[in-house]
Structures are given as structure tokens and as C-alpha cells.
């Protein structure tokens, strides 16, 4: 069944996306491989947050650079995502530590499949909870920052005279359009995932106050909240990073030499004509 669905997905990717579809599929496989590898490494007892951060770098660079090419857009999206990760790791860790987010929640403890598992893993499970939060937000953050950096790039391509502030403002403006739908995507995915949990809460007749203090709810809640916060905060960040890079391409020369807008940097020339898209 899983294999059948995977085959359908691959076929559809090719049918809808053509060559880009194959790229997407390969990136997907790579991301899943990196994710599994990082999980294996964490289970060996390696430092979970560091491993997660490194695997996020790998995943992010594959999604951006391999799938969408190396240019100013992907480069600035990449840096925005890294910045947002660095910003959010500490609050996530502090919150996880203080609110006892770690471990199995009270609903899981009643499940049969837990019975055979050993609780003696000798890994700090707060850190695992934090790496779970970080992994959850990376997809949303990449999506939003890519949308914004490519929009700012298009604006800049059509009007090279715009100042840093104007570019930033247009980035945030576009971000407002993206925000609502991304938050929606996260919310519905979360509802779909945790529907069983809510049904269980209902059948145990949990009151509202007992619900919001329960660990099971709190785990789901922080997961989606951090994803939402990441995709909100990445909007101004990504707008700022993109406009900075576009306005001062000399400083980021070595990353931009494959970008069509900044080809002139290669031989230290002057900014010339905008390459025509249709050609």
C-alpha cells in the first residue's frame, strides 16, 4: 500500500512537474535519507541538537540549491532559514526544559505498543523534544523564505533603482499574502494528525483546563506554534537578507557568480543590461 502510494506520487510528480518533478523527487529521497540518518545518529547517543542542526543545513541546502538552482534567491533564503533556526533554538530549549515537554505523554503511556520499550536510553530526552520542534519548523520556514526571496528578486529585477528600504517593504508586503495560507497549511496538517488524540480526550471527558495542562496537548501545541512563529519571523528576516544581498552583491561575490543578474561580478565589470528572460 505504501509502495503503491509512493509510485503514484512519483508518477504524478513526473506528470505534473516534468523535469522539475524528478528533481523534487530526488530531493525528497535525499531529505528522507538525511532525516533517517540523523535519527540513527541521535539514537546512538550523539548530541541531538547539533545533529539536528547539521541535518537541517543539509536538508535546506538540498531543497534550495539542488531543487531551485544556485542564485541570489536561494542563497538569501538559505541564510534566512539558518538565522531563524539560530534564533529559535534557545527559546525552544528553555521552554522545553521548563515545561517538561519531554518523553511520552499520559495518553501514550496507556498504549499497548509502549509495553516492550525500554525507558533506559541514557539520552537527554528534552534535547530530543527540541530537535523534534526544529525539524518540524524547517519545512515551513524554507517554504516561506523561498517565496519571499524570489518575490523580492523579481521586484528588484524589474526595478533596479529601488532602495534597500523599499525592497524590504515590498518583501514584507508580499509576506503578508503568504502568511495566511502557510499558517492554514500548518494548522490543518496538525489537526489531521492529532484528530485521534482529540477524540481520545473527548472520550475520556477531559475538561478544557485539564486538556490545556496535559502533556499530549502541549506537545502538539508547541510543535505547531513554533512552526507558525518560524514562518512569521522569517518574513521580515528574509526580506532584509534578500534586499541586503541584492543591494551589495560585491560583498557576497563568491556565492553569486552563478546568478544571471550578477554575472558581471565574475570579471569585475559594471552592472550591465538585465538579461532578457525570454531568450
Amino acid at each position: 500500500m505504501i509502495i503503491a502510494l509512493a509510485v503514484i506520487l512519483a508518477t504524478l510528480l513526473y506528470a505534473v512537474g516534468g523535469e522539475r518533478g524528478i528533481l523534487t523527487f530526488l530531493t525528497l529521497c535525499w531529505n528522507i535519507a538525511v532525516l533517517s540518518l540523523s535519527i540513527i545518529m541521535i539514537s546512538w547517543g550523539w548530541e541531538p541538537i547539533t545533529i539536528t542542526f547539521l541535518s537541517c543545513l543539509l536538508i535546506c541546502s538540498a531543497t534550495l540549491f539542488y531543487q531551485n538552482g544556485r542564485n541570489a534567491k536561494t542563497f538569501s533564503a538559505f541564510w534566512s532559514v539558518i538565522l531563524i533556526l539560530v534564533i529559535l533554538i534557545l527559546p525552544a530549549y528553555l521552554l522545553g526544559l521548563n515545561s517538561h515537554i519531554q518523553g511520552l505523554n499520559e495518553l501514550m503511556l496507556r498504549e499497548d505498543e509502549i509495553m516492550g520499550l525500554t525507558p533506559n536510553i541514557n539520552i537527554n530526552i528534552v534535547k530530543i523534544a527540541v530537535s523534534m520542534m526544529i525539524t518540524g519548523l524547517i519545512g515551513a520556514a524554507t517554504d516561506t523564505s523561498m517565496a519571499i526571496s524570489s518575490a523580492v528578486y523579481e521586484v528588484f529585477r524589474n526595478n533596479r533603482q529601488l532602495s534597500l528600504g523599499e525592497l524590504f517593504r515590498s518583501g514584507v508586503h508580499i509576506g503578508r499574502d503568504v502568511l495566511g495560507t502557510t499558517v492554514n497549511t500548518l494548522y490543518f496538517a496538525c489537526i489531521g494528525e492529532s484528530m485521534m488524540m482529540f477524540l481520545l480526550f473527548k472520550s475520556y471527558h477531559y475538561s478544557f483546563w485539564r486538556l490545556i495542562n496535559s502533556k499530549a496537548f502541549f506537545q502538539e501545541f508547541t510543535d505547531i506554534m513554533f512552526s507558525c512563529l518560524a514562518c512569521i519571523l522569517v518574513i521580515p528576516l528574509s526580506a532584509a537578507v534578500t534586499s541586503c544581498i541584492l543591494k551589495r552583491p560585491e560583498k557576497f561575490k563568491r556565492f553569486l557568480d552563478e546568478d544571471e543578474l550578477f554575472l558581471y561580478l565574475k570579471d569585475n565589470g559594471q552592472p550591465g543590461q538585465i538579461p532578457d528572460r525570454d531568450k
Partner: protein
Amino acid sequence: MSSQNNQGKKFDIRKKVRELSRKSKLVLMKNKRRLLLYGALIVILLTGVWLTDHNDQWYSATIVKIDHAENSPTDLYRNGTGDRYYEQTLTGTVQNGTLKGHKALLKNQYSISGVFDETYKAGDRVFVTSVSSENGTITGTISGLKRDQYIAALCAALILFILLVANRRGFFALLSLTANIAIFWYALTLYASGTNILLLGNILVLLFTCLSLLLISGWNQKTFAAICSTLISITITLLLFQLTMSFTEGVDYAFMEYITSPADLPEIFMAQIMIGGLGAVMDVAITEASSISELIAKDKEIPLKNLIQSGRDIGHDIMGTMINVMLFTYISGSIPLIILKMNSEIRLHTIILWHMPMELYRFLIGSIGILISIPVSILVSLLFFRRLRRFA
């Protein structure tokens, strides 16, 4: 000479500072209303967080604030993994109810890894059940930590940032989020009183789609095109899923987590995948609809071929990252459990095939939904906007 130069520089700097302060004053004057609004918002949010931090008397369950924790190692070593167990003796004060102010003496056991247990420290507030009082000192079992203040803080952060970044748009996004949560909660109540979950799921999808799209993009043609294409795409996805099920061995619902009543598992799973993929499909639909309407508005005579090409290009740009969003949102939740299972000597291969197929199903069907919605929403938007132009 040089001192004169220096003086000149100083003067320059002073002038600049004066100009800057004048400018910032101007900006302040201009945005006075907005600043006041944000100030009020921050005050309201902080009050809310403070209130939930001090709401112990709202609860009927006994809450104890721990004043002092004493840890002593036990001689419990299991399996020789090096995980240590500790015993905690906690002294605290009761915060609410008739016993308010009484001293409490509680016991707790924890391990370094903390998989099944928790470590409490001074300052934590915990719920205590089966309370018994013995000459002024309370004893009982700890049932869990009080977490509502963290939830309030996270909500406050979300509201503040969403309004700061996206002001009016952010407000509408928040509104749609609140409305959707309310609808979902009401549907849960209906389910508990015996309504069929599949019927509820269908109504929910309809309500969610209309409400969120209307609130996000307003009352206009774009929204209607997006609503139509979302509903069509979801239907096609579910049909495809049913078709695949009838050709393969189907889904083993025993793998679902938190099973309550085994009778209606297939229906619940159906409702789950319907709603889970909905957000992503809506996202694709509204993006396609608004960009195609934008293209037509800019150039009324744009040929059909170019429109389709642009629609496909946009679809290619969003599909990769959208599928990634699905992947990480679904898989991340099961990371702790996977790690636990791997440490219990279960191989990764076995875990993927036998312990987390539900997450994989949801992810695969959600991604299929995204891919189907790309051509569907292009087609629907074309039909909508082209026909309208012909009538005009």
C-alpha cells in the same frame, strides 16, 4: 589645522544627530496611533500571560507549588544501560482551594533520560490527586505539571508577531485560525454525541475551505475559483486513495495511535487525511487563482497557452517546498518514539514499515493532493476568469 578639522567633524556629527532626532520625532508623530495601538496590545497580552500565571484559584484540582526538592540516588540500574534513577522528596505549599497555605510533602521518582517520568524542581507548580491531610501536612500523588502559562505565553508571542509583521492581514489570519479551532471543537462535541465522523468530516472540509479562503483573500472571484478547485482536488485525491485501497491489501488500521473505539477507524482515518491535506491544497489553489487573475488583469489579451505555461511554472516553484512542509510537519512528531524504539533494539526498517505507516500514508496522500491540485486549480481558474471575460 587639525583641531579645526576635528571641530568641524564634531559639528557635523552634532548636526546629524539633531537631524536624526528631528526625523525620528516626525516618524513618531506620524505613527502615533499605530504605536499607541501596539502599546495597548502588548499591555493586554502581558496581562493575559500574567493572569494565567496566577490563576491557581480557577482550578478545582489541588495545585502545589514546590519550594524545595531533595534528590537521592536509588540503587536501581536496569539493563545496564547506565541510566540512573533518583528519588525526590518535594516540599511545597498548596496554592488553592480550602487547603490553601498548607504545607505539602510529595514523593517522585525520575531517571536521567526522563522518558516515562519527570524531574521537578523548586518553583514548579504541579497538580496533586488523591490528596490526604495528616496533621496539617498534605500528601498525594503528582498527576502533572501546570502548563497553561506556557500556552498563554506562546499564544501571546504568536498574536504579537503576526500583528506586527502583517497587521491587517495578520488579524484576518488569526480570525480564521480562531474560527477554525472553534468549528473543530464543536465538531468534536458532535462526534462525542454520536454523529457519523465521515459526514462530519465532509461538512468540516466544506466549512473550513469556505471560511478560511474567504477570510484570507476576501469576497471576490479569486476566492470562489480557489474554493471550487480545492473541493474538486480533495474529491479526486480521495477517489484515488479509495481506488488504490481496492487494488492493494489496504490499510491496517490497527497501527493508528490513540485508538478509542475500533468500530469506525476507517472513517476516522478518511476524515484525518481529508482535513490534513486541506491546508496545502488550499494554499496551491489560492496561489494559482490569484496569479492567473493577476496575469489576466495585467494583459487582457494574453493567449491561453501563455497562461497555462505561467500556471505550470508557478506550480513547479511551489510544489517542492510544499511537499517538504508536509514531510517535516508529519514526520517530526514521531521522532521521539522512533528513537525510543531504536534503542529497544527494533530495526529502522521494521519501524518504518510496522510502526509509522499512518504518518507515511498521511504524508503521501497529502503530497498527492498537492500535485493533483496544481492542474485542477489552473483549469478551474482559467474557466472562471475566461468565461467571465466573455460575458463582460
